[in-house]
C-alpha cells in the first residue's frame, strides 16, 4: 500500500535533485529544467499534505456528498496557484534564454562575455 511517507520522500528527493542541478549546471536550458523539477517537487509535497487514503476529490456531486472522505482542498488551491506562477516564471526564463542566445551565440553561462564595458 502506498503511504504518504513515500510521496514525501519522493518530493524531497526530487527537490534535492533540482537543487543539485541548479548548483552544478552552467547551461541556461539545463538550469531552467532543474528549476522546473524543483517546482514540481514542491507541488507534489503540497498535494501530499492534503492526501487522504481512499479519499475523493473535494467536489459535491449528486452521488458524493460525504465530506469526511474529501481530501484537503486548500493545498490543491495552493498548487493551482503555484502551477500558474511556475508557468509564468518558466515562460519568462525561456524568453530570456532566447535573448541570451541571440546575444552571445552560446547557452553556457560561463562563456557569455565580451560585453561593452561602457
Amino acid at each position, binding site marked *: 500500500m502506498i503511504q504518504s511517507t513515500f510521496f514525501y520522500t519522493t518530493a524531497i528527493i526530487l527537490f534535492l535533485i533540482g537543487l543539485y542541478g541548479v548548483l552544478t549546471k552552467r547551461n541556461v536550458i539545463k538550469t531552467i529544467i532543474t528549476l522546473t523539477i524543483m517546482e514540481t517537487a514542491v507541488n507534489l509535497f503540497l498535494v501530499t*499534505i492534503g492526501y487522504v487514503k481512499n479519499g475523493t476529490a473535494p467536489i459535491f456531486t449528486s452521488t458524493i456528498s460525504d465530506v469526511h472522505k474529501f481530501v484537503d*482542498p486548500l493545498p490543491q488551491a495552493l498548487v*493551482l*496557484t503555484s502551477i*500558474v506562477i511556475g*508557468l509564468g516564471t518558466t515562460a519568462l526564463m525561456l524568453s530570456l534564454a532566447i535573448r541570451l542566445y541571440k546575444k552571445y551565440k552560446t547557452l553556457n553561462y560561463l562563456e557569455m562575455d565580451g560585453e561593452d564595458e561602457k
Partner: protein
Amino acid sequence: MKNTQGMVNAFFAFLLVVILGIFFFNAINQPLGNGLVLNKDNPDLSKRVSIHYILKNVHNAEDYLAQHKSSYFRNRDKVKSSNLEFGKTKNAESGSANEVTSIVVNYRGFDTLGEVTVLFISILGLGMLLHENKKKYWAKPSLIVRTGANFLFPFIVLFGVYVFVHGHLTPGGGFPGGTIIASAALLLILGLKDFKNKLTMTKIIESLAGLTFAGLGLVGLFTNGSFLTNFLPSGTMGLLVSSGITALIYIAVGIKVAAELSSGIMEMNGGGEE
C-alpha cells in the same frame, strides 16, 4: 584544470544536498508534539482551517472562535455532521459545489487576483523580451491541417467555455478553460494560411476581463464594506446559476487567461501586427 574545478563544485554541491536531505528527512519523521502532526495518510482536518471551507460554515466558526479564543478552529461538534446536499442546500456561504473553486475564488480570492497578475506580468515580460522578434516561425499549413483546424476550432472554444463556465460545479475552472481556448488560438495560427496577429484585440479583451475582476472586488468593497465580498445571493448549490460572484469571477479569469496566453503565442509568432 577546468574539469577539476567542476568536480570540486559538484562535490560540494553534493555534500550540501546530502546535508539538507538529512535535515529535511529528520524533520519529516519527527513527532511534532502537542497534537501537531504532518499529514500521514489521514490528516486530522479538524485541526486545519480547511474543514470549515469544506463544511461552508466559516461564519459559524468565527462565532465559535469568538467564544472559545484559546481553541481555534477545533470546531469538532460541527465537523461530525454535514447537512450539505448537492442540488438542495441553499445559500451555503460560497455556494459552489467545487470546494477548490470555493477556496480559490471566494475564501482566498485575493491570492487569485495576485495569480492572474503574475500571469499578466510574465506575458508582458515575454512580449517585451521578444519585442524585436519579427520572424514567423511556422511554415504554411497543408490542406489537412487547414481543414482540421477549421473543423475543430469551434469545438475547442466551446469546450473551453464549458470548462470555465462550469468552474464552480466541476473540475477545471478559469485557468484550464482559458488555456484550452488559447490552444484553439494556437491551432488557428498553425492552421490558417494568412493568419494576422490580433494583438490589439486580445489586449482589449484582457483589459476588460481584468477590469471585471478588480471591479467586482471594488463593488464588494463599496457595498458590503470589504474587498471581494460576495454581494450576490449564492443560490442553490449545484445549479449553474449559483454561488454569486464566484462564477462571474471565474468566467472573467477564463477570458483573461485565454486572451493572455493567446497574446503570448502571437507575440512569439512574430510580434507586431501588419
